[in-house]
């Protein structure tokens, strides 16, 4: 096992063990002593510990995994799951936003439209992709591509991975609110099957701006929240370091979101998180996408739209004359 460079706090015991493992291997080579048994023992221990740690992650720890710099991004999945992805650029009005991209591709032999929030892997790309924070043009391009999909009968697959829409002067002046709001309304009425999957961070309105879909899937360690745990902690607890408590209270994790009915399916991640085995994660996603696409293709358009409307119509819980309703 190679020693990871980037280690999350809760993975430190794992790192200690893998260091030991490296040392043993080195020793075995240098001294020519057969340490296979000892090495195997540590490998088993690492495996068990990884399983143990990752099956008991707190909501805040999952947020860390969702933000892990090695976490697979949208294009990693698209490249593994699709053929002939061709990026289509620009909103036809102002610019090409590289934090929110899209294009045509073939998924299991069928043409689909990909709409994806994409983060950068190295510092240069991170800047080019604005750390995954789309500007108004990104949302407008997304809508353009979704309408294109509607026109030619392609299902839309959206990949959500953003800390949020970009908060900046230009963003406000070019009306990011309008760009998101229009997407919410138009996605609710798009006459083609739509599926979104939260692959990393589901940052509030910036995520929802490509997330009003027939089905919403989420990876096991992804999160989806109305506000970042840090932001919520700063406002309600007057202390940003209370983010772990806020993450718990906001119920941002995949398992919670499934119970709340906001997501339709949680995609399991390989042991140690999706970044530990991208192919494994992608294949689990591919399986789920195919299943949901089959379900949606079986519906006629009116039924599809009515079901979609009702899906969002009843999200939320309130009381009416003493009765709890949704």
């Amino acid at each position: 096992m190679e020693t990871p460079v980037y280690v999350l706090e809760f993975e430190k015991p794992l790192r200690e063990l893998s260091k030991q493992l490296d040392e043993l291997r080195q020793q075995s080579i240098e001294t020519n002593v057969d340490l296979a048994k000892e090495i195997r023992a540590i490998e088993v221990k690492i495996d068990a510990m990884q399983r143990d740690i990752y099956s008991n992650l707190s909501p805040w720890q999952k947020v860390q995994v969702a933000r892990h710099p090695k976490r697979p991004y949208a294009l990693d999945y698209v490249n593994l799951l699709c053929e002939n992805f061709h990026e289509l650029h620009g909103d036809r009005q102002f610019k090409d936003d590289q934090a929110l991209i899209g294009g045509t591709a073939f998924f299991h032999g069928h043409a689909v439209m990909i709409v994806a929030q994409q983060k950068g892997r190295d510092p240069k790309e991170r800047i080019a992709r604005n750390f995954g924070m789309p500007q108004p043009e990104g949302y407008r391009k997304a809508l353009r591509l979704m309408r294109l999909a509607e026109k030619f009968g392609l299902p839309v697959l959206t990949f959500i991975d953003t800390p949020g829409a970009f908060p900046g002067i230009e963003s406000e002046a070019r009306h990011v609110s309008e760009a998101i709001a229009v997407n919410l309304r138009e996605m609710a009425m798009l006459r083609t099957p739509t599926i979104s999957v939260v692959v990393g961070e589901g940052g509030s309105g910036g995520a929802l701006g490509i997330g009003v879909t027939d089905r919403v899937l989420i990876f096991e360690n992804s999160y989806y929240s109305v506000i970042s745990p840090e932001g919520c902690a700063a406002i309600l607890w007057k202390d940003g370091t209370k983010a772990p408590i806020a993450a718990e209270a906001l119920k941002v994790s995949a398992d919670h979101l499934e119970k709340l009915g906001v997501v339709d399916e949680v995609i399991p991640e390989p042991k140690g998180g999706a970044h530990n085995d991208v192919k494994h994660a992608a294949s689990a996603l591919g399986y789920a996408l195919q299943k949901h696409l089959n379900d949606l293709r079986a519906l006629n358009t009116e039924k599809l739209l009515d079901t979609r409307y009702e899906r969002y119509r009843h999200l939320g819980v309130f009381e009416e004359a003493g009765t709890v309703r949704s």
Partner: protein
Amino acid sequence: MHFDKPTYTVRKTRKKDIPKGLYTKDPVTGDIVFNKEVEDNQMVAPKSGHHFPIGARARIAHLFDEGSFVETDAKVKSSDPLKFVDSQPYPDRIKRYERDSGLPEAVINGTGKIHGIEISVAVMDFKFCGGAMGAAAGEKLTRAIETAAAKKIPCIIFSASGGARMQEGIYSLMQMAKTSAALGRLAQAKLPFISVLTHPTMGGVTASFATLGDVILAEPGALIGFAGARVIKDTTKQTLPAGFQTAEFLLKHGLIDQIVSRLDLRDRLRDLLLALHVGRKDGVPATGKN
């Protein structure tokens, strides 16, 4: 995105109405004005035209033909699906908001007539939890939109909100989708939706129904935006220009149709509805006169 309350003040009266007492200071002119005089003038300072916040009930009283407003869905109230506790349990907060505001929720909705034109309306009130949109507020807004569609009448929503109701977590975010989807159906039915943005309209409310108006009006000086000023500063290190995120800024950038004084709103809404709705329905051109 952080849908928090705005953290800077463009007016000195952000959080509360005019303080109790006889007089108040006009933040524009510095003059002392009689509270009674301001209240009688829909909370607009008579000389300077400064717009103090107005409560949902007072707005409704001034807006509609006398006795025409019928409140609906008054029993829709917030629940606590997440069992949310910060410095206090969420249900305790709700009770306090109810007590302090005298309102059952951050939205009051119903139907009424403006110069004889029947409309479905929802009015947000900042006094209740900063107008934050949770499931109950979202439900009332959605019902106002659906009522308009069912009765084939126009819909008007007055926004005043810091954004999403964090204590309802992801459900508060989903109200953006719920309200916007309902507006999609209203648009398909070719019924007008007029959005009136009042001080302040921020975050998830701006990024959903409030910005989807066929016509978008704003009150003078209203703070309107997506991200709070602090979030923008922290993220971008940008210095915010003077007047940033005010109604005037939005008008200049082409993001809203008009800034309308509260004193002119009733007549302006009539004129717009005559043109967009009444004239169209009767098949005769609007005359501009009722």
